[in-house]
């Protein structure tokens, strides 16, 4: 098979240059490494050389084949191979194929090896095989074509199969190794977590979102005094305790449904032995990668000692050690709570109880007996009144108080007072003594909105004194007139003159808001008296006396000065957003010749613009067309100060005078709105009266303010009725100037409900 082309016709740059460096690859067929074989199909002296083939077409086709072959391997994958290495590969494989084509005997294994070499160099693309076979087929192959191509393809395929399996094995092994190492690391990490979980000083429990407890640590077992099997498999819902803080289970439901991610509460649990353990509980939600809740982790810290101490301190602070009844502190806490967010129209009752003749018992039979008597009385009161839902507290000495929350009316309060008296009707047995104890009761029953805790207790106390004075062993009902009289009689009138000098008065301001948009339009100045013994007194408790004694004049001036100074400060700070100032003008002030002069001076010294001031007068200020007061009121209006009629509808005013008064506003007395919530009164009629007052005022061109507005529904209805402004708890209670300033600053915000 002597098929060598003429010597020297092979382009040297493609073949010759590779020279001796062509020895690459690890093939065992040594004769394939002959440097010239790849390019010279026939070589003189070669041991395997067969019959020579000198046909020029053979040579040409071999050259063309070599070129095509090089082109095939340089394309595609070939770009990633170093050009030198690629050249050697081209020579090697082309040489092998030549020998397979020409040598005698036919060596198909050379072709197979060429195929394998391609795969070794990572020519694994089947397109390479297809093109290679195509190139081989266009060679004159003397009938060897099918066998040669078959051998080449088989060699390529076998090598590819081997290579694929080898690589798959290698990557599989790498994956296994990586996985093993990861598992090892995971086990180590898990061991660390397990140790952390197990040895944590805080109790930790893991549960699923169905509430099944999956794992608990040692600290939690100790906390519950339980073995793991006692807790595992139990459900979180079983751990309910009657003293659970309200909201804890709602928070739990929100957590497991994914609405919140954690919560914290102090929560009691029953230990395995039935004891109660108090814990500080934190529960966190664990979600999967998609955010779906999967686990809950609870961390519990034992706070039993702290909790018990706290409870003992709290009980001590709020309970009377002698009788076990709530003490003064506890009573005031409860009472003040009533005033925090009362329902509209909410009422309450107080029975202020004082034992009759207790001092005698104490003095004659000794303190021990006295104490036993107090304890027995306390027991009777509690037994009689607690079942009715009332709170009995000991205020001190022989004074007790009954608090009726959500009182339905005077009758109920009176009934409670009667129950008190009945409970003490039978004598008390202390040792050998049969002690007949009576009691006097002052009963107060009011709408929450009309008073304050301090004023209510004081009023009940004064009512009690009236009961005592009236002859003991009886109850007396609060009477506002009597109350005012009692206040004045006992303490007020005597002290008031010095109070002004001592700076015991101060002023709160109550908002008046526009019903149209809820904005703050004015504030009413309300004078208070911080009485050293009685606490803070409201104007209704001392203004009457001040009028009687004439002290209203200096007090009224002081109020005007103070309030105008404050209002001017607001104008400086907030400009147009500052509210109008409303100040009450007593009848005596209105009739005073000095009023206009005082006003002029005060406006000048404070710098308050007159149009920011409105004086509130009552219907009784002007009693007829010839009234002196009318003149000074006109002079006030001439200053630029406006006037409004306060508490309209409570006096017996002659409506005819209303048109002669130089007023620009009218305030409908709070009792009209208050009566709407009185179950004994016709609501429909109440609204018609208010509506009538509003249209009356509007027909006179007056701005109407509704007083005593305590809820949004009433406010809405008043607004629809065309009422201009409103005042009342719904729009804000009397407040310190700083609170008002905050309110003005945040005036873009809606009114507080």
């Amino acid at each position: 098979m002597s098929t060598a082309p003429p010597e020297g016709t092979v382009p040297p740059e493609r073949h010759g240059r590779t020279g001796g460096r062509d020895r690459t690859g690890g093939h065992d067929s040594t004769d394939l490494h002959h440097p010239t074989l790849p390019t010279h199909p026939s070589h003189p002296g070669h041991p395997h050389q067969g019959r020579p083939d000198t046909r020029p077409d053979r040579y040409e086709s071999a050259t063309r084949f070599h070129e095509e072959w090089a082109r095939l391997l340089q394309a595609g994958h070939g770009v990633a191979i170093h050009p030198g290495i690629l050249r050697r590969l081209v020579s090697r494989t082309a040489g092998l194929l030549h020998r397979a084509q020409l040598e005698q005997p036919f060596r198909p294994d050379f072709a197979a090896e060429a195929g394998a070499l391609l795969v070794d160099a990572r020519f694994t693309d089947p397109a390479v095989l297809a093109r290679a076979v195509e190139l081989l087929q266009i060679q004159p192959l003397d009938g060897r074509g099918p066998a040669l191509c078959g051998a080449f393809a088989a060699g390529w395929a076998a090598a590819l199969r081997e290579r694929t399996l080898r690589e798959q094995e290698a990557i599989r092994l790498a994956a296994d190794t990586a996985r093993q190492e990861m598992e090892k690391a995971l086990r180590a990490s898990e061991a660390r977590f397990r140790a952390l979980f197990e040895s944590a000083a805080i109790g930790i429990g893991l549960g699923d979102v169905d509430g099944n407890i999956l794992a608990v640590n040692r600290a939690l077992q100790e906390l519950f005094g339980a073995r793991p099997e006692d807790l595992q498999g139990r459900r979180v819902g079983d751990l309910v305790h009657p003293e659970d803080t309200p909201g804890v289970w709602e928070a739990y439901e929100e957590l497991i449904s994914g609405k919140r991610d954690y919560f914290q509460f102090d929560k009691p649990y029953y230990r395995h032995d039935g004891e109660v353990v108090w814990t500080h509980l934190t529960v966190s939600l664990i979600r999967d990668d998609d955010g779906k809740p999967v686990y809950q982790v609870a961390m519990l810290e034992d706070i039993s000692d702290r909790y018990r101490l706290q409870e003992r301190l709290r009980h001590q602070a709020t309970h009377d050690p002698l009788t076990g009844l709530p003490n003064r502190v506890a009573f005031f806490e409860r009472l003040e709570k009533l005033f925090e967010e009362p329902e509209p129209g909410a009422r309450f009752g107080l029975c202020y109880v004082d034992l009759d003749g207790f001092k005698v018992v104490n003095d004659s039979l000794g303190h021990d007996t006295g104490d036993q008597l107090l304890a027995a009385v306390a027991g009777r009161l509690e037994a009689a009144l607690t079942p009715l839902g009332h709170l009995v507290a000991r205020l001190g000495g022989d004074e007790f108080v009954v608090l009726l929350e959500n009182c339905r009316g005077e009758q109920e309060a009176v009934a409670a007072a009667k129950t008190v008296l009945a409970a003490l009707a039978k004598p008390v047995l202390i040792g050998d003594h049969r002690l007949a104890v009576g009691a006097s009761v002052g009963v107060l029953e009011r709408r929450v909105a009309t008073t304050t805790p301090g004023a209510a207790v004081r009023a009940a106390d004064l009512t009690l004194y009236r009961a005592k004075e009236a002859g003991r062993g009886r109850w007396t009902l609060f009477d506002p007139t009597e109350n005012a009289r009692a206040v004045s009689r006992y303490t007020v009138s005597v002290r008031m003159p010095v109070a002004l000098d001592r700076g015991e008065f101060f002023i709160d301001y109550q908002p008046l808001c526009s019903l149209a948009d809820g904005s703050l339009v004015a504030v009413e100045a309300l004078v208070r008296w911080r009485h050293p013994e009685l606490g803070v007194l409201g104007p209704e408790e001392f203004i009457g006396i001040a009028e009687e004694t004439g002290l209203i004049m200096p007090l009224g001036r002081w109020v005007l000065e103070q309030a105008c100074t404050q209002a001017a400060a607001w104008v400086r700070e907030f400009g147009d957003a500052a509210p109008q100032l409303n100040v009450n003008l007593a009848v005596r002030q209105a009739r005073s010749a000095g009023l206009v002069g005082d006003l002029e001076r005060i406006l000048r010294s404070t710098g308050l613009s007159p149009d920011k001031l409105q004086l509130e007068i009552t219907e009784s200020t002007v009693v007829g067309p010839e009234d002196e007061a009318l003149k000074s009121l006109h002079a006030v209006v001439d200053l630029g100060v406006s006037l409004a009629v306060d508490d309209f509808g409570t006096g017996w005013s002659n409506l005819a005078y209303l048109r002669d008064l130089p007023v620009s506003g009218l305030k409908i007395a709070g009792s009209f709105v208050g009566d709407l919530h009185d179950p004994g009164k016709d609501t429909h009629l109440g609204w018609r009266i208010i509506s009538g007052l509003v249209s009356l005022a509007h027909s006179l061109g007056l701005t109407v303010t509704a007083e005593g507005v305590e809820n949004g529904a009433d406010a809405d209805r008043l607004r629809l009725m065309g009422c201009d402004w409103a005042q009342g708890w719904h729009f804000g209670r009397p407040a310190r100037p700083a609170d008002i300033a905050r309110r003005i600053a945040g005036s873009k915000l809606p009114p507080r409900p």
Partner: protein
Amino acid sequence: MGRPNWVPAGTDLDKPNAARVYDYYLGGSHNFEADREMARRAIELWPDLPAIMRSNRAFLRRAVQHVAEAGISRFLDIGSGIPTFGAVHEMARGIRPEARVVYVDRDPVAVAHSRLLLADDLLSEVVEADLRSVEDLLARPEVAELLAAGEPVAVLLVAVLHFITDDDEPARLVSTLRDALPPGSALVLSHASMEGRPDQAGPHQDLYRRTPTPLTMRGRDRIVELFDGFDLVEPGVVYLPEWHPDNPEGIGPHPERMSGMAGVGFLR
């Protein structure tokens, strides 16, 4: 990120992995069905991909050759993947037989494979580390030792920075590496770019979004910025086939179709 050091990384063979997908593109069988499925879909959308990968591999070869001829015999190959075909140590040793290479990858399987392959090679090391925690990467003993000698080191960031999202600040990572390099060191960098085939950028990034290594293609300017502090070797940042071709025909008629961009820089 966000995983503490002492919590092991996962080896999720059901998810395609960039290193094994790359191997498939290059005609290898170091891959699993999930990798092949992803690669086949990618090729279906963008038939040039295998050619681009080969082009990238060819760039790596030419760049390693270039820096080795420039005298560098230390290599830090970050994101080395599965270095079966034309591994850096083989290529470098053609010129510098003493070449040392530290291969770094964050995929535990790629690392395990490299370790099996290089078990007997005393001058090569394999480190499992994450470029995103570049300080941790630099602190690994094998890396620290490579840098400590004070001899120039070639940092290879070949087809790896496009797996760093903008949130992970690729420029900061490169500058941290740069600051740790001895004088005379080099940066070899290639990066998937949206310049050549803007039409392909969207769908191709979408495909990688489901993998542990989402793809962020960047424009030429952003890629040039990564060479901050390095003097770029001529011709600068160019399409893969345009960088120091073996011969003029090597560039091919449409270098922009090999949409990746590449460059080599020496520390200033």
